[in-house]
């Protein structure tokens, strides 16, 4: 079964590459759509030159700043809204608007206020991402299983123990799911903000290649970034989720963070 899955994976990847190569070479479109070999060669060159390290590090640093801010705001608001009917009603409209807000707005307004600094991507990412985390935490807090709380008090479990073993345990997965989701949003918005206002980072480099009209360059940076993201998502985050929440049904496809 497992090897079979790998074979199919290989088949679908090869199918895509062959399709791309045929389109590029067969129809002589290499100037417009580049080709797998060109991108691969340029990727190897980029990796060997080491130029990518600085940009990747800058982007990652900004993603982490944004994510930390998102986590703080998102968690606090989610808990407050989940515990208090008043704040639930007072803030609900902002969450609705926040969920629908186009990311470009956040990027541009952050850029107006904070210019070419790390604060711009941080604020833009947090502004777009935190409503998603708030929503998850808030629903998690609301849906705490009251039967389990009743069971706990029937067995004279202390309040602290019940909070730790029931409330915390049942909100944690929601929190983690929301955090993962907003992490995906953070790196997407960070690249966008870099494109609007930055002089380094993956988003900046994609724009730079774009202005050089180099499709190979755009694709090279995209492939590099995608590989790193896939590694972080599936190599790290999904593994943590699997270990920590083994009792929960896991989702096969994790990154859903809307752009």
């Amino acid at each position, binding site marked *: 079964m497992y090897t079979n*899955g790998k074979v*199919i*994976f290989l*088949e*679908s*990847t090869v*199918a*895509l590459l062959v399709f791309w190569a045929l389109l590029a070479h067969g129809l002589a479109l290499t100037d*417009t*759509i580049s080709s797998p070999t060109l991108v691969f060669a340029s990727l190897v060159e980029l990796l060997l030159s080491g130029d990518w390290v600085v940009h990747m590090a800058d982007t990652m640093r900004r993603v982490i700043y944004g994510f930390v801010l998102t986590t703080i705001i998102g968690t606090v608001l989610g808990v407050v809204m989940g515990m208090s*009917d*008043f*704040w*639930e*009603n*007072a*803030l*609900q*409209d*902002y969450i*609705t*608007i926040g*969920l*629908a807000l*186009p*990311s*470009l*707005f956040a990027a*541009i*307004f952050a*850029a*107006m*206020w904070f210019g070419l600094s790390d604060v711009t991507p941080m604020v833009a990412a947090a502004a777009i991402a935190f409503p998603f985390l708030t929503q998850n935490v808030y629903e998690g807090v609301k849906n705490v299983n009251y039967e389990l709380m009743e069971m706990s008090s029937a067995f004279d479990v202390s309040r602290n123990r019940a909070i730790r073993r029931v409330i915390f345990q049942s909100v944690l997965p929601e929190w983690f799911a929301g955090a993962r989701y907003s992490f*995906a949003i953070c*790196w*997407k918005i960070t*690249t*966008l903000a870099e*494109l*609007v206002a930055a002089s380094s980072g993956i*988003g900046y480099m*994609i*724009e730079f*290649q*774009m202005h050089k*009209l180099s*499709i190979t360059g*755009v*694709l090279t*940076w*995209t492939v590099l970034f*995608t590989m790193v993201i*896939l590694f972080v*998502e599936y190599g790290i985050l999904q593994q943590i989720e699997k270990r920590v929440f083994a009792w929960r049904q896991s989702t*096969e*496809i994790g*990154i*859903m963070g*809307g*752009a």
Partner: protein
Amino acid sequence: MATSDKTAIRGIRLPSSLTARIFGILVGLAAWMLLAAVFPNNLMPFPLETLGLAWGLVESGVAWRHLGATLWRTLWGFVGSMILGTAIGVLMGVNNYSRRFFTPYVVIGLSIPAIAWAAVTTLIFGFTLMGPVGATVLTTFPYIAINVWKGVESIENDLVDMSKAFDITRPRMLARLIIPSAAPFLFSGFRFGLAISWKIVTIAEIFAASSGVGYKLMQTYQLYQFETAWAWAILFIIVILIVEYGFVKPLERRVFEYRRDADFALLG
């Protein structure tokens, strides 16, 4: 069950929830005024000023042109991603082989940032409709595919067997069993798809167009016309809210009608 409790409680507490909402809006406005007072006016204009500017854009007709262009691209991007996403989602639901075959496309698709697609489609298609639309379709389809796939998986085999036992034809099964049972998932795919399409179209308009809200916003930023940027933002949010409450919410109510009926009946 839970719904009935809540409705009952809400019935009594309506005034206080309304107060909370109004309080929320007032606090928001106050915060805006405060920021506007502290920051230089061009960075953070007052609410009324912004509305005045927005009205100016509407009156002069500029707003219609750019909002219209963005809406038009959003529509096509959304339709395209629904078609591609539904096709792949259905294929993924049909059998194991195709699920595994398409999973990498969906997973990789989810991890490519919109700006990358926007750059690629601009270089390929130039300033045509295909630029922003292509970027939108390529960014959005994985989200729809996942929802459709879950919807197809959710169809109960027992009901399919039942239909076969009663000799139901495929078109009827599709209309009466498959589509209704996948509807909540299709709808959430639809919703998600629409929400993302707005966002991607505005992003793609940065490079791939010379009209549209995204293009205008970028332009105002580069020309340091920050008050105008605020006016555009307000206008666009109003459009999104109109679509949300005037179109998506009513549709949602219809899709989930049978569930709601069932819930209400539990009251009695």
